[in-house]
């Protein structure tokens, strides 16, 4: 049956609605990660310091090495990689690394982590302030390699994390505030 022409004006809305409904969000159903953990940064934003605060409060057994390279993973003894994802030109400048070089580091590091059998938890706590051209590059480069992702909701307002995690069937937990992010992070560990 040929649709009346007026129906065509509703088609975009229907398509957007069906797209949003099919983008499921996953909640982690059981712990997946083992200790000790290694906290790193991809993007070199100050968010890694906030995640440190969360980890310290949860008394999780971890070390931090924001700029670790692939070659340092095995020596770290970590069984789980916690990645504070978020780009900062200030942070990259302070670390003496370009955005492209950081992306290269991320690529090699994530491949090595997979090879070593590390669980990878991605966490984005920077909210809306940690989105944009620079940060999104690191998000796109990192999320698909994660086994679990935690995001502060404001940083997922456009549904980017939802879509990326749904496409790769990665469990995603969204929290309202940074202070709430410590709980799912802690519970992800056995």
């Amino acid at each position, binding site marked *: 049956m040929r649709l009346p022409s007026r129906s065509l*004006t509703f088609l975009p809305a229907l398509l*957007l609605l069906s797209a949003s409904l099919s983008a499921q969000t996953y909640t982690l159903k059981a712990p997946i990660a083992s200790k000790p953990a290694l906290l790193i940064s991809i993007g070199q934003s100050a*968010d890694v310091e906030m995640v440190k*605060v969360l980890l310290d409060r949860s008394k999780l057994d971890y070390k931090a090495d924001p700029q670790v390279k692939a070659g340092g993973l095995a020596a770290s003894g970590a069984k789980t990689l916690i990645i504070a994802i978020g780009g900062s*030109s200030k942070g990259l400048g302070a670390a003496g690394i370009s955005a492209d070089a950081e992306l290269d580091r991320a690529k090699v590091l994530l491949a090595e982590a997979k090879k070593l059998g590390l669980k990878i938890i991605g966490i984005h706590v920077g*909210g809306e302030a940690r989105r*944009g*051209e620079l940060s999104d590059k690191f998000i796109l480069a990192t999320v698909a390699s994660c086994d679990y992702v935690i995001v502060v909701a404001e940083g997922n307002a456009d*549904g980017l994390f939802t879509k990326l995690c749904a496409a790769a069937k990665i469990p995603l937990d969204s929290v309202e505030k940074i*202070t709430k992010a410590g709980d799912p992070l802690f519970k992800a560990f056995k």
Partner: protein
Amino acid sequence: MNRIIVIGIALSGAVSVAFGQAVPANLHTRGAQGANGVVATAKPDSAQVGIDILKKGGNAVDAAVAIGFAQGVLEPNANGLGGGGFITIKLVGKDPIVIDFREMAPIASKPDMFKYSEDGKTQLPAKRTDSTASAIVGPGSQVGGLASGVPGDVAGLLYALENYGSVAQKTGKTMTRQAVMQPAVDWAMKVPVTSNLAGAIKDNFDKIKQFPAAASLYLKDGLPYDIGDTIQNPDLQATLKAIQADGAKAFYEGPIAAAVVSEVLAQGGILSLADMRGYKVEARKPVTGTYRNYTIISTPPASSGGTHIIQLLNILENFDMKSYGQNTAKSLQLWGEAMRLVYADRAQFMADTAFVKVPLTGLTSKAYAKDLAALIALDKVMPTPVAPGDPSKYESGSTTSFSVMDKDGNMVACTKSINYFFGSGVVIPGTGIVMNNHMDDFVLKPGSVNSVEPKKRPLSSMSPTLVLDPQGRSFMTLGAAGATRIITAVAQIISDVVDHGMSIQAAISAPRIYRTNTSDYNVEGRIPVSTTNGLTALGHKLLFQDDYSPSQGVSQGCLYDYATKTLYAGADPRRDGQGVAY
């Protein structure tokens, strides 16, 4: 076919929602217009402060000073009592003046005061006097006590009020220091945490948490505030009340000064009570030039800004910018090449003229600009830099700028700063004062015209600028935040208004470019693809930024349309800018 097009639009809409960049809130309501007075600042609340002062009969300077103190409370990451800046004033019938309240290097400063690693590459941190405390992390010129110059904010704002406010000008009686500072006093207990402030706190979390006084003020339970929270700063309120009651000496002498010196020393600095007592505002003749018969009035050294804005526009005046169009490949080829030449000169010549002879007349001359323009071609890129460049300094969109204009033609533009967001990270306990890190604006090793010397002012790019129309009438006030991007932002906005007939708001919102003699060619995301393709074809290597990038300068301005007798305010959506009018 229609169905295919609709499906395609829907899908592309879904994709752009998924991967598109954030559009600033209230994008189309930043500007304002009115018949009596306009104000444009980086925060809606401080803009309202300014308009309220104008409505109560204050003049443009009263309003600007009220905004200045309020802005220090409302945007504490970018300016405040611990910082410095410049104000450019033109009252009707009077000559323009620039009030230079830039920070001064402490008396104990030396050209080699910042220490480096053995290989000379890494700057070492400042050392706390309490050896049991954790070490400061970060370069000494940026983090900790050694990074601070003697603040000029209080001295500068009060100098402006006491010499150019309505009471001083005998045009009013009510805008006393008490009246003008009261809004800041009130706001100190209810600072809104906007998206912008929340982001600034997050981005500087590692610096803030190093200093307990800063952490207690700008973190909530050890983590950044959330958007929508309110920060209470009773210490800052008390400090403002003391200044309100007793004037500048309440800051530069007595217990507040003692507290500033004590904490800066404790955090590895070299500030002294003599530095605080000896701080001096400089009232300077502006640097002036013309662009297509419009008069440009702007800041002389210790700011490089005014000189180089005029120089940049002088170069482009040799080209028919109007015919090339706004943000086309041709016009941006010219802008980009001109910027390279200007920044090469800035690196070579610019410094505090109290210490160094700077060829201001030559730099702002039309003849020199014509020689430079002859080096620029529409169809090819100049070879490598023509002069040794400054090290390409990382800088965020720090600093704040605001403009005031009234129906009589009185104009004030002010730009002030604590340098990097949250300055040195040092907050003076009990006072709420965030200290600047403007020592970082010096060349940090000996041998440059801009090397550190006692009492010298570090080179700035701040450029609060006034423009007169070809008839010599008050036309536009303009300023920007963003370090060296200030120069290029202000120049592009002037051209957008003068060459392309844009409104002040459209000109401020328009996408911009930025480059120096050594940097990448930075291009804001909204520059048309046809333009960026054309620039790439010429051989430029472009670095794309967000669609609304604070790294392109953040500007506020006012303009008067004589045809309609309307004042317009334009404010930048790249941060929390807002215009208000009545």
